[in-house]
C-alpha cells in the first residue's frame, strides 16, 4: 500500500514553479545566449539544466531568483571555459563562417554586428560584465555579486572591454 510522503518531502508545487519558469526562462535564455557569444542553443541548454537542478530543490531554496542567476552564470562560465579551449584548437570554426554575422552591413545593423563580434570575442569575465552592465543595467556591486567576484574586479574588466570595443570601432 502506497503511503504519502512526509510533508517536508512533498513534490514541488508545480503551479508556483511554472509561474517562476514562465517569468524567468526567457530572461535567462537571452542573457545566457549573450554570455555565450550568441550561441542560442547553448543558452537554452544551460538554462534548461539550471531549471532542472532548481526543480529538484524547489521548496528548499529560499530565494530561487538569485539561486537561478548564480547557477546560470556558473554554467555559462564553465561552458565558456570549455569553448575557449576548443577555440584555441580550431580558431577558424569559432570565428564563424564567412558572411555569417560578419562585420558587413550598413547603418545600425552593421554597427550591431561589428560590436557584437567584438563582444562575442571578449574573455568571459569581460563579456559578462558588459552584458550585465549594458543589457541588464546592473551596478558594479550587483555585477560582482552575480559573478561571485570582488567588486574591484568589475571596473578593470569593464575598462578593458570598452577599450577593446573602442579600438574595434575606429
Amino acid at each position: 500500500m502506497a503511503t504519502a510522503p512526509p510533508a517536508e518531502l512533498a513534490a514541488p508545487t508545480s503551479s508556483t514553479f511554472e509561474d517562476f519558469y514562465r517569468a524567468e526562462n526567457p530572461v535567462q535564455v537571452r542573457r545566457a545566449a549573450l554570455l555565450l557569444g550568441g550561441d542560442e542553443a547553448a543558452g537554452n541548454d544551460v538554462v534548461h539544466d539550471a531549471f532542472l537542478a532548481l526543480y529538484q530543490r524547489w521548496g528548499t531554496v529560499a530565494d530561487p531568483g538569485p539561486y537561478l542567476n548564480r547557477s546560470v552564470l556558473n554554467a555559462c562560465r564553465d561552458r565558456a571555459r570549455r569553448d575557449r579551449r576548443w577555440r584555441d584548437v580550431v580558431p577558424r570554426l569559432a570565428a564563424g563562417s564567412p558572411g555569417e554575422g560578419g562585420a558587413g552591413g550598413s547603418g545600425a545593423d552593421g554597427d550591431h554586428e561589428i560590436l557584437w563580434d567584438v563582444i562575442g570575442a571578449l574573455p568571459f569575465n569581460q563579456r559578462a560584465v558588459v552584458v550585465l552592465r549594458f543589457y541588464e543595467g546592473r551596478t558594479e556591486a550587483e555585477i560582482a555579486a552575480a559573478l561571485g567576484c570582488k567588486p574591484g574586479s568589475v571596473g578593470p574588466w569593464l575598462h578593458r572591454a570598452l577599450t577593446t570595443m573602442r579600438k574595434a570601432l575606429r
Partner: protein
Amino acid sequence: MTNDQIDDEALAARITDALHHRAAAVAVDDRLDSITDGLFAPGGLAPVHALVPSPPGRRAASRLVFAAAAVLVAAAFSLALWQRGSQQPLSPVSGPTPADARIYPILDPATLEGIGLTPDPQAAIQGTMSSTTGPALVLRRVSGDGPGDVITVWVASSADVDGVGVAVPPDGADAIGSDHPVRYERDVADATIVVDGPRDTGPTSEALIADLTVIPQDGELPLITLDAAPDGWEVLAGPSVPTVEVIPVLNLAYGTGTASLNVTRQPSFVPQNELTPVQVGGRAGYLSELEGQGFTLTWALAEEGWWAQMVGYGVSRDQALALAEGVTFTDKAVWSARYPASTATDPGDLPPPTIAQP
C-alpha cells in the same frame, strides 16, 4: 562634460542597442515539460526529495565561494613578500578557520561617509565567506630576491579561478600593469592549475604549466609533481598538498570605487622596498599603490599569525588608511549575525539532493 565622457556615453548606448538587438533574435525554448516530466516516475508519481547534507569539511573544500579572487590576489601578494632566506617552508596552512578567533571583519557604514566616500545605496558593505587555496609549488629565480622573482603554482577548483582580478587573456599578455603577474591556466578534471609569474617570465611559466605532472585524487584537488625546475629557477617550496581554507571577506562599494578586504593566515611577512611601512591600529602594516587607481594595504591583526589585506580602488592613501583603521575584528558568531545574508544565495551552500522514487 569631457570628450571622453561623451564618447563613453555614446559607446554605452551603442553597446546597449547592439545587445538588445541580439537578444531579441534569440529563440527561447519554453517547454516546461522537458524539465518536469523527466523527474516523474512512470504512472505520474511525484518524486521524493531526500536532502542529504554533505560533510562540512568536504563542502568547504569543494565549494565555489564568492570572493576567491581577492583571496588569490592576496595570497600571491603575500607569497611575493615572503622572507628570503627564511628556513620556514612555504607549505600551505591547513585546517578550518577558527570560529572563536577575532579575525572576522566588521565595518560601520558611517565610516565610509566619515572619510568622504559615498556608500553605494544598494550594497555598501557585504560580508561573505570565501576560500583561499594554498600554493602547491613555489619557485624562485636563482639570481633574484624581490617580489618579481617568484613563480607560484596553484591548484584550485575550477570556478574559483575565473574571478581572479588579475586574470589576463589566454595569450598571457599583461592586463593591468607591469607589476602584475602573467597567469597561465591548465584545466584538469574538476580543477585548474594556475601558474602566476612576473611579467618577464611568460615563456617560463607557460613551459612550467605544460611540464607539470598531475595526479588525480578521488574527490579532492589533484596533486602535482615537477621533475626539475626550469633553468634559472629553484624550487622554494612544494610540491605540496593543496589545501582550501574558508575565510571571511568584506566587500565595500562607494561612489568612487570598491574595496575588498580579506584575512589570510601568514606566519612570516617581511616588507620589500616598494612597500611603505605604516601603522594600522598600532600594528605593522604595508601600503602599496595600485598604479594610481587605489591602494593595497596589508596589516597584522591582534590574532597571532593573521593578516588583513584590503585592495581598494578609487581611494586616496589617507582614505585607505582610514578605512583600515575603521575595521574591527570579531568572532564568527558576531560576524555572521551582522552579515546574515552572506551566503544565502550561493547555490553551493545547499546540500545536493538525491532523488528516490517511491
